[in-house]
């Protein structure tokens, strides 16, 4: 019986395993050094905040794996020998495979800051990071202040986590507005204000120079690059993005760039070795997507696709329309299609931006200013329907159609106030003055 070994028990690897099991009787083994069972990485924050316990972040009960004949092996893969199809583990174990799926995800970026490996410095990605945070920041007596370096999705989540335990937070953001490499300015600035409303000390256009240690090798303070200011703190969160977690294959024959290089079939240069999820890097980007997509949904979609290939129905990874979501403190964010920030958008992309006066809701609609074709929408504080936007993008609707039919896309709970009329009238007004 063919033996498929998957390294990594995150959403990519587990989705692959589940779909292979649906399609076949192959022997499946999932290897992980992080945890015994699959858990939802995006939910780690809720454990620290006390909304859930770790066990609640596990989407399947523990009996699920045996019932579905998915073998789980805990261990750290040190090297991959592709000629003999063998995995070598850190503890000396070996494991033979017929087909190998690399789904090892990411690791937090470190940019060579002095002191970046001190006690009390951590990313927020792995289960171990959470344990580490629990140790160094159990409450605001042990941790009198935390400094977060890097203004992205994980950074703001870490700020929310610490805030839930009343630990003062200083949030260093390199850009002049939060996440404005991705978000258009109207949205980015609204989030700036939202962060400050939670009593978080947000420092824009601010870089880290170094992290200083006390006599025990523990974090004592950070120094700001621009001003030389010293900020005392007990925890430093490094959240300046992630990169593929593939050090263990650097010495193998598998081709790597920043990630594991794969073609559209998610195949590497070595036969019977595949890579999916955060750690996979496309030779050429697909559409507007990045070559490395470190997103929950793309990991899942690659898993769905690869399972087909592994079970004899070789198909390309052809993701549909882009979508994503996040939550910034109390403001939910969804995006469908492509809305680029001022920094990265093309000249033909125009935006219509509407913001509610309470400063917690806004939308940005992107369209082609020559053809009026609808390109995408960012929505903050208003839930919208994935299937409706997916359909409109497929049908290549123009922006007028989308604006006039916005109520159809509303997904807010019943009895919520609706803003479509207000949005439409703002849109029409803008057309007249433009």
């Amino acid at each position: 019986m063919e033996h498929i070994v998957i390294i990594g028990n995150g959403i990519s690897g587990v989705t692959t395993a589940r779909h292979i099991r649906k399609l076949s009787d192959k022997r499946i083994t999932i290897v992980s050094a992080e945890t015994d069972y699959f858990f939802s990485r995006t939910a780690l924050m809720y454990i620290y905040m006390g909304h859930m316990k770790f066990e609640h972040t596990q989407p399947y009960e523990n009996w699920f794996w045996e019932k579905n004949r998915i073998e789980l092996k805990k261990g750290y893969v040190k090297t991959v020998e592709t000629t003999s199809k063998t995995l070598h583990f850190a503890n000396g174990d070996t494991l033979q495979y017929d087909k190998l799926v690399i789904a090892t995800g990411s690791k937090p970026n470190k940019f060579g800051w002095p002191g970046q490996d001190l006690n009390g410095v951590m990313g927020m990605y792995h289960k171990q990071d959470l344990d580490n945070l629990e140790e160094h920041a159990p409450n605001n007596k042990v941790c009198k202040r935390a400094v977060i370096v890097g203004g992205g999705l994980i950074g703001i989540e870490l700020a929310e986590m610490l805030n839930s335990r009343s630990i003062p937070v200083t949030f260093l953001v390199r850009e002049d507005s939060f996440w404005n490499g991705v978000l258009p300015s109207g949205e980015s600035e609204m989030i700036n204000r939202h962060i400050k409303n939670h009593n978080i000390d947000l420092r824009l256009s601010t870089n880290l120079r170094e992290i200083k240690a006390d006599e025990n090798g523990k974090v004592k303070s950070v120094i700001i690059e621009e001003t030389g200011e010293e900020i005392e703190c007990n925890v430093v969160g490094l959240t300046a993005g992630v990169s593929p977690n593939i050090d263990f294959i650097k010495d193998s024959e598998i081709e790597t760039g920043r990630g594991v290089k794969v073609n559209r079939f998610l195949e590497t240069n070595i036969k019977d070795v595949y890579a999916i999820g955060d750690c996979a890097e496309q030779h050429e980007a697909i559409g507007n997507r990045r070559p490395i997509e470190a997103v929950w949904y793309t990991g899942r979609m690659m898993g769905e696709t690869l399972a087909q290939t592994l079970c004899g129905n070789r198909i390309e990874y052809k993701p549909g329309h882009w979508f994503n979501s996040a939550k910034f403190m109390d403001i939910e964010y969804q995006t469908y299609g492509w809305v680029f920030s001022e920094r990265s958008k093309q000249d033909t992309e125009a935006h219509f931006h509407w913001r509610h006066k309470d400063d917690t809701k806004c939308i940005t609609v992107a369209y082609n200013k020559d053809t009026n074709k609808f390109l995408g929408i960012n929505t903050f504080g208003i839930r919208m329907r994935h299937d409706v936007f997916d359909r409109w993008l497929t049908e290549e609707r123009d922006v007028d159609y989308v604006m006039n039919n916005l109520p159809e896309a509303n997904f807010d709970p019943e009895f919520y106030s609706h803003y479509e009329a207000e949005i439409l009238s703002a849109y029409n007004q803008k057309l007249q003055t433009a």
Partner: protein
Amino acid sequence: MSNKLNHSMSLAKPDALDITTKQKIALIIGIAGLFILTLALLNTDFPNKGLFLSLSLGLISIGTIVYSREAYLTKQEGIKNDGQWFKSISSRGLWGWILGIILTGFYIVLYFFEELLGLGQGVDGANTGLISLFDPLSQLLSGRPASQWFVYGTLYTIAILAFGYKFILKYRHNKYQQLRTVSVMFFQLGFAFLIPEFMYSMNSSLPYYDLKNMWPLNYYNFEQYRVDSFINNGNIGMALLIFGVLSIFVISPFLTYKYGKRWYCSWVCGCGGLAETAGDSFRHLSSKKMSAWKLERWLIHTVLVFSVVMTTAVIYTYLGYDPDKYWLTREVFLISIGVFLTIVFAVIMIFKRQELGKDAKYGAIGYFVVIALLVAMHFTGTTDQVFFVKAGALKSAYGFYIGSIFSGVIGTGFYPILGSRAWCRFGCPMAGILGFQQRMFSKFRITTNGGQCISCGNCSNSCEMGIDVRHYAQKGENIVRSSCVGCGICSAVCPRGVLKLENDTMKGRINPTEVLLGNDVDLMELVNQK
């Protein structure tokens, strides 16, 4: 492994989430109110009972209100579940167990040892103790002394009102939650508490009737003494009796078809009202395991069969034999019950066989058990006996095990251990019937928003009915479950805007998928077509 997997049982707070000074004062105020009740329970004879009762209930309410305002109004609007699994009281810690034991003890005394509360213990059968403290209020509302049920009803209403206020503040960004809570507060105060008292003062021969409390939750509604007094009270009585029957066969199926069982369970029902307000802090404690779901399905349907058979037996024994005296004889009654159940069973099997899948077998077993019991009833029935026991004994057994132990002692007493809806989930026969209607013929569902789920588990964690909501959401599948009471908290806590409660067409309501929206269109078609 830290993260407080094994909860500390220490009384000292193990976590960083301390309450503020203002909240401590509020707690003291509330406890002072409870202390007055405790003194009364210990037979302190208060001089001015009206004053002390007002003081007690007032302090409890003010304490809760001040505490809640400090907890929620000092923060931004949003989801407020920080530390719920750290706090001893809401994570089965020591305080949780202490509260559970106190509540359980209270219910046991209430149901079985009402004399300990002072019912009729004084001179000439006057009340003493706790019950006597409530006499002034009872006199005011209906002109009679209080009973243990009046005390219970008053405290129950105060709990729903005060904690309802807390809940509204907690969800002050969410209109659905606010309206739903105002609704349960209104129905408790008006329908369960005030109207029956006023009805009594207008016409004391009418039985206590909480209009919203329908059979089989109100399992005694068709007992002989009640039916007799309905019939003997002319038009009003007949109207109430007819309303009682209509609410089971017409009103509730219609509303459930339109809105799902939530119209009752989380908007109207008193048990649900308490669970949603006072029980809110314990909703996440319900078990989400598959094994708990299996137990639930056996238990709740067994209780339902028990309640149907018990009620049938009770009515059967007081009906006559002679069709000349009254058209509804016991024969006609038994046959019509059997015919009704057969029609329901046949319609389901003909039109909904596919949807039922493996459950069809269990449905058939249930149906034949009931029919067999009806036949047995016919052959063993005398004027007061069925199955060779007194129908009254059957009723008492039901009242004792289901009405008291299950719904009260376990259902509410175990809030801090089993979560807030153990009764609704495992025992309530009304929930069983409404759930069946919801699963089979309702426009209600929780829609999943395409491929947006990140499997975080907030929805499942906060489901008081123990539904593993994530199991459906992460497959892009709508949630159509008989047990869902439509409280809407899963939708509220979802960080990615994935869930929406809505009433839409029956078509495409149940939509299992394997590959989710957002992937290759060809792949989705290939895998999802079945």
